[in-house]
């Protein structure tokens, strides 16, 4: 497998302009001859579909949701970064670029990060023009706030619902094109395979959720913007149905998967209590500005928080990191919380949470101040847990939140399958080994609004092939593969003697819970070789159990949510194995990937720039075969790799 990142030459500041100049154009008359398929209706997918349609291409957008407005971009709370320097505090494209490279712990491409910073301002312009109601100053100009990992104030926001407002802007632009007849919107479709003809991406096979009918859809280019894979961990901050199926099936068809072990765990989430809990809810990280994290100094101390005197409390982040205190980066805060809980200091059910205490700020500034800052978050916490955080400390615990890994793409966002482009969280992105707050929305919109429309158009210019229709043998073959997979699920167990269900004795949910426990234990906040190897064996055994013991309701035509879940879980099981292999192979600690074997005497991450300053890209090698690991070296000409120090 050849990994050519297609990086532009010359000065980094001119690279994107230069690349756009080189990309060939298509005449307006010819544009309408091209069909483009977009999978996913989040920020990246909706904005790419709308923009390509505005340019004159014929676009079909597929989403598993009943409406594009439900895509999980909707849940992003904090904000979106842009190097506008509206606050006159020294921000610049250069600074956002360097912050992104450093935040990613020197595991992302410089050229890509620079382009992201360059485009960031135009994204805000576009969103404002769409009618996104950003927060404003009294004079009517845009407001900004601070966010983790930056010394400047460059985050644009709409209360705690920035993702929702940006998504509605993008979806409205999409619906405008639907109304104009330039976008065909196909909802309630699960994308289950990629169709390739002579090695080029030519379409997808999808299942219509209502009828269960399989459809082969063809196009001149396929764009995957289907989001991340945090649900490998079963419980995460993702939506319950967020899935990796489109990218995983594309991987099996030849698209390399980059850095699958780079997954971000967010420190401030509402912890799990009952095993039946279906998800973990994020509480904005801004809470750490005013809350103090602590645990009982005495392991096993079961007294309620209020009964533990000040002298017997351990404010462990303040103790371990005197400079940054409670504001250490996400990965450090998560790791230290887990460590203390494992040592028996944790509170709440199973000792799996830490206190986030606002008492000091409330007594210093008054309840009203806290209420105005975090009122909505306190209300959300109370609704979910039944506990009043003005009176007793919150309990929080880290939860899987974002995946930096994803399908490998070159500078033009094209995967190793020609004609297959990957956008947003679905690609391995510019976030390296760790993503900064408020950068996910920026990247999704950069890909969808500006980068993909230019590069996809440039690629299409050379590929006005004879159209591939759904009766092409490749379409029929791919559809047959999907049909056989659906028919084969849960069929090798006890047979169909169970009323209207078939298969064995395990529900999809119970298998998914088990996968989550294995993965969060071995491949979560902290990893070591022995644990990863054991987990790999466990995941492979679980995949066998899935094949033999899964119970599914019949019939498989018509609406069948259990079947939808099973198809997603099968892909998560295979992806989990790849994550474990990647975590094993990366013998260093960097960003969100912490290998216990690679730490300093005081427990800090040790990066290995001699052996691992590269992107790992995995090639599928068939079922039951070990995948192949390739690498793309990274070069730093502008940013100087340094070691993070928050003490």
């Amino acid at each position, binding site marked *: 497998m050849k990994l050519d990142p297609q990086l532009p030459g010359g000065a980094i500041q001119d690279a994107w302009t230069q690349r756009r100049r080189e990309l060939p154009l298509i005449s307006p008359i010819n544009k309408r001859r091209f069909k483009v398929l977009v999978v996913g209706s989040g920020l990246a997918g909706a904005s790419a579909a*709308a*923009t390509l349609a*505005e340019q004159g291409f014929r676009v079909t957008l597929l989403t598993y*949701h*009943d*409406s594009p*407005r*439900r895509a999980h971009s*909707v*849940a992003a709370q904090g904000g979106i970064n842009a190097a506008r320097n509206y606050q006159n505090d020294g921000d610049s494209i250069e600074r956002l670029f360097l912050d992104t490279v450093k935040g990613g712990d020197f595991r992302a491409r410089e050229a890509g990060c620079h382009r992201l910073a360059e485009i960031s301002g135009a994204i805000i312009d576009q*969103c*404002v*023009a*769409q*009618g996104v*109601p*950003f927060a*404003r100053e*009294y*004079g009517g*100009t*845009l407001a900004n706030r601070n966010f983790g990992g930056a010394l400047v104030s460059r985050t644009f926001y*709409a209360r705690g*619902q920035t993702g*929702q*407002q940006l998504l509605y802007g993008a979806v*409205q*632009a999409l*619906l405008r094109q*639907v*109304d104009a007849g330039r976008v065909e*919107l196909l*909802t309630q479709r699960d994308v289950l395979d990629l169709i390739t003809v002579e090695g080029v991406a030519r379409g997808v096979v999808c299942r219509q959720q209502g009828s269960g009918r399989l459809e082969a859809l063809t196009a001149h280019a396929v764009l995957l913007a289907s989001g991340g894979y945090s649900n490998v961990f079963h419980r995460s901050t993702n*939506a*319950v*149905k*967020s899935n990796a199926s489109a990218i995983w099936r594309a991987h099996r068809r030849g698209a390399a998967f980059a850095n699958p072990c780079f997954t971000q765990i967010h420190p401030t989430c509402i912890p799990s209590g*009952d095993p*039946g*809990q*279906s*998800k973990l*809810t994020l509480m904005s990280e801004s809470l750490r500005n005013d809350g103090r994290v602590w645990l009982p100094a005495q392991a096993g101390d079961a007294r309620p928080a209020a009964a533990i005197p000040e002298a017997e409390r351990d404010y462990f982040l303040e103790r371990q990191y005197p400079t940054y205190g409670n504001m250490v980066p996400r990965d450090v805060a998560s790791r230290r919380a887990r460590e203390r809980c494992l040592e028996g200091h944790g509170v709440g*059910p199973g000792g799996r949470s830490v206190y986030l205490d606002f008492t000091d700020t409330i007594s210093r500034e008054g309840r009203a101040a806290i209420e105005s800052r975090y009122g909505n978050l306190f209300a*959300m916490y109370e*609704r*979910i*847990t*039944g*506990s009043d955080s003005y009176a007793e400390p919150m309990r929080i615990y880290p939860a899987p939140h974002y995946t930096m890994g994803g399908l490998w793409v070159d500078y033009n966002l094209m995967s190793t399958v020609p004609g297959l482009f990957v956008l947003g969280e679905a690609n391995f992105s510019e976030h390296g080994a760790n993503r900064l707050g408020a950068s996910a929305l920026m990247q999704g919109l950069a890909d969808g609004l500006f980068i993909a429309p230019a590069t996809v158009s440039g690629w299409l210019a050379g590929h006005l092939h004879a159209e591939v229709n759904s009766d092409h043998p490749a379409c029929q073959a791919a559809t047959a593969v999907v049909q056989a997979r659906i028919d084969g699920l849960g069929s090798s167990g006890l047979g169909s003697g*169970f*009323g*209207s*269900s078939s298969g064995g004795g395990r*529900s999809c*949910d119970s298998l998914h819970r088990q996968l989550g426990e294995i993965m969060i234990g071995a491949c979560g906040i902290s990893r070591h070789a022995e644990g990863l190897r054991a987990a790999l064996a466990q995941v492979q055994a679980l995949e066998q159990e899935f094949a033999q013991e899964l*119970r599914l309701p019949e019939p498989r035509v*018509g*609406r069948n949510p*259990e079947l939808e879940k099973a198809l997603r879980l099968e892909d998560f099981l295979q992806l989990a194995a790849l994550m474990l292999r990647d975590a094993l192979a990366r013998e260093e600690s960097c960003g969100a990937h912490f290998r216990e074997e690679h730490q300093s005497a005081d427990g800090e991450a040790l990066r290995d720039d001699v052996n691992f300053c590269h992107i790992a890209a995995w090639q599928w090698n068939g079922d039951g075969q070990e995948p192949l690991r390739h690498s793309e070296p990274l070069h730093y000409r502008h940013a100087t790799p340094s070691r993070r120090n928050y003490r």
Partner: protein
Amino acid sequence: MSSTTIRLTLRIWRQEGPQQPGAFVSYALEPLSPDLSLLEALDRLNETLLMAGERPVGFDHDCREGICGACGFMVNGQAHGPQRATSVCQLYLRHFRNGDTLTLEPWRARAFPLQQDLSVDRSAFDRLLAAGGYVSVNTGSAPAANALLVGREQAEQAFAAASCIGCGACVAACPNASASLFVAAKLGHLALLPQGQPERQRRSTALQIAMAAEGFGSCSNQLECAAVCPKEISADWISRMNRSG
């Protein structure tokens, strides 16, 4: 967090598909932690049904944090259930009493055809927005962001209207199954901003025509819509729409 458990009976509308007949079926749930959500109780019920060889209950859901707008059904006759400003995914069992029977029914409105059990098709909402619920601006043609000044209070009001999650509770609660709150919130959001001015009249007319065409009823000022809205969108937006489009 409480350590006791709660026993509930769910009386659920079961209907395999739009063409099949439907009926209520009662299920006595196992004792559950009051810290589970109502949707998690349905997950548990579905796992039990699956293992017993019965078809699980179909219901819409996804983010389970009250922002995607996918979930929604009637709980004891109330859209999204008894808690104010709360979508059904944010209802926890502690909000009910031990021994309660909850009747769960789908949204019932001509414009929202039933798909299965508690799940309905709300694509009519997207067709309303497609009729004109946007600002016509192509990517790349936007002026510099701070060239458009928007007063702070105006931006906050526009945000309040724009926070509608498109769940459909307003339609389900309305005796006329009107989509007036949904449409008025979108018109209000864009009418408050300078970006929305050029198309304002066209947008207002187009959305109101589309609303009738999709089979939604008219507003007769019952205000049930605002009472059940999980985002507390005010019925004042409807007055504003009727006054000035």
